[in-house]
């Protein structure tokens, strides 16, 4: 019998095993890479920026109707003649935003609560008054810009990346550890001289390496497919993503620390993640929630991660500007790991 010294360290082998198991699980690959891309494409198509729709306006019949119509019809306004009851009906249904009853006095009928209605009233009145001979004292000119970084897709993609980092870290660690526990593999490994820290580190290293692959792929996809701004400080993006993934690795470990079966850990994970899916600004801004909730929402790790990613990608923020968010994520990491290690059930 030949005794040999271990050719590679336990940590390396444990980490390699985690990688092998990951890449041999096609569904895990999909949730990490495919899902965010598919979601970004679907939402990007649904919310893509179109040229502004013309405003639809109804003009009530009368001697001046035809002239009003020809003065209004343009790229910005589409007008047609409709009798009073029909026009009312169209307004109620939102088919038109404004009814013009030629005067004098000319009457505008609109729903005050709809911003499009008010905009149409201003535009239509301006047009007609000018056509009727009003002279503006100051000549005006317009300049049109579409600001990359302020579109919905710019908002969405960093949020999707944050969400993916959260769910892949939590599932990748929490679920995997509980599965090992139910298969008695944790116990089996503990029957060897394995260091517990090596066991846990292998999961963390695997997550960290995936961030280094996942984030550039997803950001690159956003830049190529949706014309996202190329981050000025890629390092800041990576740093935020890494610390964010670590914070969620810690939370994953925490939910897995006691759970004895995968249903329990799955439920716990959803309880932890659901509020963040909704409240941390993945699909819509956190600012939509009442002021009283803001401090709590901003304390959530996914909010910090999403805000950080948005700042670093869309605004080109650097390390210094992101420092408060980074610190918040580091705190989450430290606290969740400390709690998880205290609670962890090894046997």
């Amino acid at each position, binding site marked *: 019998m030949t005794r*040999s010294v271990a050719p590679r360290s336990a940590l390396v082998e444990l980490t390699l095993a985690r990688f092998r198991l990951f890449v041999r699980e096609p569904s895990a690959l999909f949730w990490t890479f495919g899902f965010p891309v598919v979601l970004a494409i679907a939402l990007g198509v649904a919310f893509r920026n179109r040229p502004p729709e013309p405003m639809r306006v109804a003009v009530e019949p009368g001697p001046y109707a035809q002239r009003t119509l020809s003065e209004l019809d343009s790229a910005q306004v589409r007008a047609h003649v409709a009798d009073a009851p029909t026009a009312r009906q169209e307004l109620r249904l939102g088919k038109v935003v404004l009814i013009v009853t030629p005067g004098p006095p000319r009457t505008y009928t609109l729903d005050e609560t709809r911003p499009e209605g008010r905009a149409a009233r201003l535009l239509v009145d301006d047009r007609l008054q000018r056509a009727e001979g009003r002279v503006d004292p100051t000549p005006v000119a317009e300049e049109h810009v579409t600001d990359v970084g302020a579109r919905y897709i710019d908002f969405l993609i960093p949020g999707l990346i944050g969400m993916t980092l959260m769910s892949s870290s939590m599932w990748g660690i929490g679920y995997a550890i509980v599965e090992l526990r139910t298969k008695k593999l944790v116990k089996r490994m503990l029957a060897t001289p394995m260091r517990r820290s090596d066991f846990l580190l292998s999961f963390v290293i695997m997550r960290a390496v995936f961030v280094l692959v996942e984030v550039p792929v997803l950001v690159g996809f956003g830049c190529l497919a949706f014309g996202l701004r190329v981050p000025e400080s890629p390092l800041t993006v990576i740093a935020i993503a890494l610390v964010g993934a670590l914070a969620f690795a810690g939370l994953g470990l925490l939910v897995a620390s006691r759970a004895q079966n995968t249903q329990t850990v799955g439920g716990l994970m959803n309880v932890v993640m659901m509020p963040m899916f909704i409240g941390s600004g993945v699909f819509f801004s956190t600012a939509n929630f009442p002021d009283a909730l803001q401090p709590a929402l901003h304390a959530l790790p996914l909010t910090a991660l999403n805000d950080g990613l948005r700042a670093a990608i869309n605004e080109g923020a650097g390390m210094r500007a992101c420092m408060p968010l980074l610190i918040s994520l580091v705190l989450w990491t430290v606290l969740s790991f400390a709690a998880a290690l205290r609670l962890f059930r090894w046997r």
Partner: protein
Amino acid sequence: MSGGACAVRCRGLVKRYPGVLAVDGLDLEVRAGECFGLLGPNGAGKTTTVEILEGLLDPTAGDVEVLGMRWSSDERALRERIGVSLQQTHLPDRLTVEEILVLFRSLFATGRAPEEVMRAVSLEEKRRAHYEKLSGGQKQRLAVACALVGDPELLFLDEPTTGLDPQSRLQLWDVVQEFRRTGRGVLLTTHYMEEAERLCDRVGVVDHGKLIALGTPRELIASLGGEEVIEVALEGVAGPLDESAATALLHLEGVRAVRLTPDGFALAVEPVHVALPALIDHVRVAGMRLGRLMTRHATLEDVFVSLTGRGLRD
């Protein structure tokens, strides 16, 4: 080895679960280099006992020493020197045989080459097969290989062949016997009598968390009083025989023990060529009709039955 020639020694071992006394004051000594078998039915407390000895469970009370060391003070050193196969472990489905062995090898500071262990358990041809694709016997051999790859001085096997087909069981027995050729100790649990008789130098019979018999398989069988068993089924009897009929059987020449069965009786006899004619005469005189008569060697199953009145797999 410090601590005398004992591989394992435990005294007064107790493990209490809510509502269950899984281990109830067990004393045990496994000598260095011997193969010791813990034999008992399901729920007897074998797994609990072994996992306490492996340092994976804390006993409610009692004292454990393994290879002269204690779990409380020498855990890491001990883990380097023992090999463990749990009653049920599910290794990762999508790692190959070779990857699993290399992984387990890396967890030990020193050990055997994975290649060599793979050969020892005849899995070289399966080296690139994923665990999920292995047969039950191959999985079990891989589990034992994972215990061997650290080159242990003492091997713990918890029901290594439960649920395996006879062929796979034989292959596993070969692996254990091969390991023992280097003079190293094994502690295994089983509820298969043949396994204990075939592999073990000494056997401890466990029931309800207590050690109820201890000795070599020979000694235990001899404790029945006879090494042969005659099993008789009678025709035309409604139920078990009564006590007086049993006493009459016990007084026959060569009969050492009597056990009544639902349709007849089993006798431990010594020697069989004296007991058998006496029995035939007795049956004729008593007016009983023989349905079936069979003689065989006594086994540990008979020992267990005579100790507890129950079969091992009841």
